[in-house]
């Protein structure tokens, strides 16, 4: 055993962290090496100084303050856990989405559901129910709605123009009624 190995063991031997053969080898080396013998002794002193620190303590008030803080917090009702908070947030988002979809205007719903082109049919009808026509359609929707067929006789100047718009959904039919003031050029375009 050389001095370096002896010092490594000496550091552990001070607290008995060596095996019996290691301890014997260290003692044998230290018996013939004054420097290593002094090292063994010095590590013993060091361990004693560290062990003496075990007796240190803090003032009583410090402990009391910690206990008071803990008991105050333990007494309070428990807040939501992070997973509970996330579940609540997810539920709120899901409800909002459902409400948004349900409250969307009819026109928008058609735009979403209508996959193919809508069919536009014009007929000359003097009176028809007075449902409101769709207020507005987006440019993309307008692109998908095209005039397919126009039937019926030419319109009289004061006759209202009724547009019936079919979508892919058989339950959804849109009526668009223009009053008699529609210009002749426009009527020609529609016919």
């Amino acid at each position: 055993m050389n001095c370096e190995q002896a010092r490594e063991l000496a550091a552990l031997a001070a607290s008995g962290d060596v095996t019996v053969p290691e301890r014997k080898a260290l003692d044998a080396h230290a018996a013939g090496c004054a420097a290593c013998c002094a090292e063994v002794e010095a590590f013993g002193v060091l361990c004693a100084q560290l062990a003496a620190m075990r007796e240190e303590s803090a003032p009583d008030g410090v402990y009391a303050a910690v206990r008071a803080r803990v008991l105050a917090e333990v007494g309070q009702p428990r807040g939501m856990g992070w997973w509970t908070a996330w579940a609540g947030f997810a539920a709120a988002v899901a409800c909002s989405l459902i409400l948004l979809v349900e409250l969307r205007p009819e026109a928008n719903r058609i735009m979403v559901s209508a996959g193919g082109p809508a069919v536009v049919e014009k007929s000359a009808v003097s009176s028809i129910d007075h449902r409101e026509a769709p207020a507005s359609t987006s440019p993309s929707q307008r692109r998908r709605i095209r005039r397919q067929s126009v039937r019926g006789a030419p319109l009289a100047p004061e006759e209202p123009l009724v547009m019936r718009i079919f979508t892919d959904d058989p339950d959804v039919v849109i009526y668009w009624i223009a009053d008699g003031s529609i210009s002749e050029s426009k009527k020609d375009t529609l016919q």
Partner: protein
Amino acid sequence: MREAGVLESSLAIALSATRVEPETNTEVRPDDVNTFALIAQARGGDRAAFDRLMRRHERLVLMTALRFLHGNMADAQDAAQMVFLRLHRSLGQFHDSEQAGNFPAWLYRITVNVCHDMNRRTRRRGEVDLDAVARVAGCVQDETALDGDRRRAAVKAGLEELGEKERAAVILRDIEGLDTAEVARILGSSEATVRSQISVARRKLRKFAEVYMRRRL
């Protein structure tokens, strides 16, 4: 003459140090049974029992935290509070007296983890604990201190120079007096690693104290 006296007392301390037997937690002691009873009462909502449980272990938690957190008492109090709150949430884990026997080891483990987290956050923020530096410097530079006090101060200052893992091993093994196997379990490493860390740390502390004392002479 004075040197001879110091040497004599050092030898006496060294001999007494070699007689220190590490504590083991393999047996169920009366204290553990009492701890188990307190845990059971606290689990049932008895605040007085939880208060007694804290009183019994507050020194272990606070002083360990204080050493891990470079002597900063405010941080140590925060850490102790976190440890006890975590204990309150985990009371259900200790169902029998055998588990209550492992209770101190569990507390050490939680304390070490909380302190590591706090140290990591402080490092991430790039903060330097100037109070701790001043405390250590103040101890070491105290010219009027007696030789023994200066040696202790040098050891304390040396502890601050160690790496986190080495310091943890020394604090638990040498200051708290746990055995190597227990330290390894608490730190989540092998006994061989802890032995190596302790050996390196003690040699560094020895060197630090030696250099310091040589400068003072």
